[in-house]
């Protein structure tokens, strides 16, 4: 027993799951509507995980038996994996069924199913992960579905980021020095570079489409927000070497000069 290899490891990750928003507590009507949707795209819904969103119902004070809705969903072929916006009774039922409860964020990133489909089709840039990041940065583990909203943390870096270094921030990332070509900076939130950006910058890496990149001098090799990316080849000459902000609009990266 010399080399004991670890039995397990915890890692955090993000998953995409459709959210079912209910507007009416008529069980029969819900089942019918669901069957109809499934017949449109049976492959997409087959064995799909699903989060049930009861915010609208509860806003309208319409009660719903959560156990009943779960039974229907399972019968149709869904795997309900979460509840959001349930009342006390519904949350209790969910807990009894071992279904995690998502505390609702108001600015919630709910997407309609059509969009979710598109999103899954969006290619994610695959930054080659180097085995040991050379600048260790505090990384909080984020438990996706069940985690309560975490206050946005920001990471401040003052020394230059050299080629081959990787920086990861679980919130916003603020960098005061230059980012060299061949370096990689990633944040779950926004990225600010108050200097020259020559490396790769990936904001909203956990899918936050509202994340933005701000930089003082854009010469990046690659920029990405929530998986949508552009390489330096696609960068507009007008914005090159200028102070810009970059954001996502209808899955298109918009690069805008900051006057």
């Amino acid at each position: 027993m010399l080399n004991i290899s670890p039995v397990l490891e915890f890692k955090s990750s993000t998953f995409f799951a459709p959210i079912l928003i209910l507007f009416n507590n008529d069980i029969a009507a819900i089942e019918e509507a669901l069957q109809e949707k499934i017949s449109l795209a049976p492959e997409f819904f087959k064995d799909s995980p699903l989060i049930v969103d009861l915010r609208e119902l509860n806003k309208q004070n319409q009660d719903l038996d959560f156990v009943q809705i779960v039974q229907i969903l399972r019968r149709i072929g869904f795997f309900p994996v979460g509840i959001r916006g349930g009342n006390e009774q519904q949350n209790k039922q969910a807990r009894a069924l071992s279904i995690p409860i998502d505390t609702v964020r108001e600015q919630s990133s709910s997407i309609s199913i059509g969009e979710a489909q598109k999103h899954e089709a969006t290619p994610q840039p695959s930054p080659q992960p180097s085995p040991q990041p050379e600048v260790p940065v505090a990384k909080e583990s984020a438990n996706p579905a069940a985690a309560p909203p975490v206050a946005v943390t920001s990471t401040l870096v003052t020394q230059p980021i050299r080629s081959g270094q990787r920086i990861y921030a679980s919130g916003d990332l603020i960098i005061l020095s230059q980012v060299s070509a061949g370096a990689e900076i990633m944040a779950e939130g926004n990225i600010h570079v108050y200097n020259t950006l020559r490396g790769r910058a990936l904001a909203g890496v956990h899918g936050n489409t509202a994340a933005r990149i701000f930089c003082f001098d854009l010469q990046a090799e690659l920029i990405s927000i929530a998986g949508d990316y552009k390489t330096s080849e696609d960068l507009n000459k007008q914005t090159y070497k200028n102070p810009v902000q970059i954001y996502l609009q209808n899955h298109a990266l918009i690069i805008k000069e900051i006057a």
Partner: protein
Amino acid sequence: MARIIVVTSGKGGVGKTTTSAAIAMGLAKAGHKTVVIDFDVGLRNLDLILGCERRVVYDFVNVINGEASISQALIRDKNCNLLYILPASQTRDKDALTQEGVGRVLEELSKEFQYIVCDSPAGIEKGANLALYYADDAFVVTNPEISSVRDSDRMLGILSSKSRRAERNEEPIKEYLLLTRYDPDRVKLGEMLSLDDVQEILSLELLGIIPESRSVLSASNAGIPVILDEKSEAGQAYADVIARYLGEKRPHRFIDGKRGFLKRLFGGRK
């Protein structure tokens, strides 16, 4: 306690060993007891540049393995009695070096010497990592060429994260730039990166520009560090580097093109 200097670059062939030999000789000539260590195990070169290859008996790896004492392995330079060389082993590879062993040798040398110059091998593998691990100062040797600049940038990232100073959260390694093989005429023609181009990416304290010079190759072949060739521009440039490193203020030379023919005749070079 000795000051440990690593001469590094990432890229090969940019002038690390030439620089190591020159600055070690320069420090010794300035009156500081100095030892220069060849970390390029398996590709031993430093002893050739210093002209002591025929006096190598024991080497760095022998000392690490306890097969020889440090005093048995050290070679005293024939031109300057304050300079010593610890040669690399030619028959081994980088795996013969261990962090603990290197640390032990450096600690022992620290008791006796004022400066320890570590001549790093190219690359970012074990040999290079061990050469920089214990360093206090880094001389980053860069050619005015894009791949060399990129590799130096990479090396700077490693200096700031993988050294003992970084691991212990101490004051970081002091990094200096040495721009070697610089040819102002080719810079003017746009064939070579300018000092400004290089500094835009690296932004380091410039210790000196070593102009491209024939005297470097002939000095290497003769086994005499180029800094001893006081007539050559490269030799003067290295002398400037040492003076600046030791705290003297000297204006940078060799940035602009060569002087005209008449000026060269009458301009009075000392």
